């Protein structure tokens, strides 16, 4: 629930937007960021479907690396 996921903004109809990560598109809410602070192509940190901060691409990639490891670890342990 509380896991933050970096996503790339691909479409904006403020306050709603479409963002993408790992080829998956999802509707997100940009209400927590001022309208002029986020544009198409930006990377954002998303929590429960809400962008909470704009981050740079390098940061997004670093965080995805960790998430990938976590997910791989989770897949190995399907007992929960």
């Amino acid at each position, binding site marked *: *629930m509380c896991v933050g996921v970096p996503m790339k903004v691909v479409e904006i109809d403020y306050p709603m937007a479409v963002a993408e990560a790992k080829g998956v598109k999802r509707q997100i809410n940009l209400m*927590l960021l001022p309208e002029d602070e986020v544009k198409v192509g930006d990377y954002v940190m998303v*929590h429960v479907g809400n962008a*909470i901060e704009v*981050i740079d691409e*390098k940061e997004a990639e670093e*965080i995805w690396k960790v998430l990938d490891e976590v997910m791989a*670890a989770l897949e190995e*342990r399907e*007992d929960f």
Partner: protein
Amino acid sequence: MKRERIKELVSLIHEISPKDRKIKIMNVCGSHEHTITYSGMRSLMPENIELIPGPGCPVCVCSESDVINAIRLSQRDDTILVTYGDMLRVPTKEGSIRSSGRNYKMVSAPHEVLKIAKENPEKNVVFFSIGFETTTAPTAALIEMGLPENVTILTSQKLTPEIMEVLVKDEEVGVDAFIAPGHVSAIVGANAWRIFPEEYGIPTVVAGFEPDNLLLAILRILYQLREGRAELENVYRGVVRPEGNVKAQELMYKYFEKADVNWRGIGLIPKSGLEFRKEYDNINAKKVFNLPEIKEEKVKGCICDKIVLGKAYPNECKLFGKVCTPSNPKGPCMVSMEGACNIWYRFGR
């Protein structure tokens, strides 16, 4: 490259760590505990350094009364209870939302509530909003978008810096340093933790979730302890600003105000959560449905309260891994994937 960096950080940690005493470093974030546990970070630490999980799991501390009220609401024919997936299996004396509830739906984002409300105009749609600042701000964003008439919100929101202050004053916990949660900090700002070094002399470092970032935070803490300093540092600058997300803070406090709230197993803590401001009684499910405060009943043998406060580790609980497992959780710390018991069960410590 990364492996080299981790090796280097671990060797520096061993080199500069004060050897003459035990050092307790607490994290207050389920995702931090996750990284620490799955990466086996505890085994890389010098013997006298303890990495202890604190209250980092909002599902675990959500009051039983709020969960029971959610279950009861979902049992009404005219109502749909909407909440996050993690909440569905939280055990109470009246069962869980999944086992005892009737009309409930799961969402992964608050704005999905709007679609459910639109598709069910004849029903009361109650959004059970639980969590720390990272979920409270999105709930405020939902309200700001304008709620349909059939939507109300049942809140169970907690504040992170406030519970940390309770821990600092508790001698039984004896925290030497804090690793502050990265994403809560993105909302409240790194400066929200300033009080810990400045008023309590506790080194505090805001960290992200990569193993090397957490190791760097631990290293920064050890440097401070060695030199007798207590400062606020931020090693997650790419995401966390000193002032945080000001718009998110404004929206949160537009609709909510600080209130005394119940923490499961712990009790009422003054000004440790958020409740609706009086002018929003019309969307406050507690008022609209006149919900009672239900007395909590502890799960026999469960020490989740101690685990949440950093006074015990999951494997010190008699139920852990025996009768209490992720597929059959007895206590709240085993339910959520952010709960210390759940993480320890899945990844070992």
